């Protein structure tokens, strides 16, 4: 579930923190920068494990703060492919079942990876496993808050770092003969998750824990 990642970065310590132990000040700055943040292609950073190497500190003209290159190890949430994880159902939608682990929210189980046959109950907004036995059909609802065990099928990293301003909208006067390009995306409203896990429960033993416990 967690990995240790070796990273290198330059940490800036402002002058008012010069009285503190260097290691402590470093640790605080690194945690401030990385904790609870997703690093592209790495994972969700949890907390600092240790500092392996501190290089010399430099002060640059015009800035009273010291800059130090640090080699450190950080605990990162990055489940491996096919790992089994447990979470709670956050809610269901047409896109699938959304699962949360408390500290990490963006887990989706798409409809094709649910136990089949499955249908989406529009009225109650839940996915249902239409379980067939010899005695007849038995609908198993995937309710909010239920604990669910799933396998990690895929992971998606999206680079959500700020990009430049979108191309000018229609209020800018268009020059004759020049086509105005539409704004890049109407993206202001929707924020994409930087790190998403795609899960599957299409196997014996996966799905709601209550389905498999005696």
């Amino acid at each position, binding site marked *: 579930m967690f990995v240790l990642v070796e990273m290198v970065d330059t940490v800036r310590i402002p002058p008012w923190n010069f009285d503190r132990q260097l290691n402590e000040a470093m640790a605080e700055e690194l945690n401030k920068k990385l904790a609870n943040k997703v*690093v592209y292609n790495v994972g969700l950073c949890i907390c600092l494990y240790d500092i392996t190497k501190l290089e010399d500190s430099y002060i640059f003209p015009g800035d009273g703060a010291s800059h130090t290159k640090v080699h450190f190890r950080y605990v990162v949430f990055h489940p491996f492919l096919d790992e089994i994880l447990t979470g709670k159902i956050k809610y269901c939608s047409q896109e699938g079942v959304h699962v949360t682990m408390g500290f990490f929210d963006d887990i989706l189980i798409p409809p094709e990876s649910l136990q089949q046959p499955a249908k989406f109950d529009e009225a109650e907004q839940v996915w249902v496993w239409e379980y067939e036995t010899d005695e007849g059909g038995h609908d198993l609802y995937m309710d909010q808050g239920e604990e669910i065990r799933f396998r990690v099928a895929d992971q998606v990293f999206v680079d959500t770092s700020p990009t430049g301003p979108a191309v000018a909208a229609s209020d800018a006067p268009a020059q004759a003969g020049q086509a105005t390009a539409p704004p890049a995306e109407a993206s202001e409203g929707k924020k994409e998750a930087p790190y998403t896990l795609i899960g599957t429960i299409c196997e*014996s033993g996966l799905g709601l824990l209550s389905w498999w416990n005696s």
Partner: protein
Amino acid sequence: MTCYSLFSQTDQFVTFTFFFFTAQVFKLLIDLKEQRKDGGKSKHSAGQQNLNTIMYETLKYLSKTPSSRQSPEIVKEFLTTMMPHKLTKAEKLQLLNHRPQTAVEIQLMVEESEERLSEEQIEELIQTISDHLPGDPEQEKAAAETDEGGGQS
């Protein structure tokens, strides 16, 4: 909880080192929490809010898993006992994280278990796990009261 993607391509990283046992993460967070309790003012400053949030949520999650009851000695002893079974590191990690009590769960975590383990070996594995890894005290109390053995055949 929104997470922000950070770092442009200019910052460089080395690759992942190794799977970090969940029990180690739990211990690390508990120790860090203790440390910060004495820290006084610093943990409430604006910049530390993210660390507080992630620590709180992760501890909340992990405290409900078997890893929260696994000291380094228990983990080491378990891994030593597991050596003859020839499981991969990922498989042993999952056994530690989930403490499976049924054959169905073992089959999920061990690849091609039908070919690598016979039925007796699976039963043996379940027994070893049950003996070496502490279970959830509340769950065990409830099971003892209803007098139902765990697991399905």
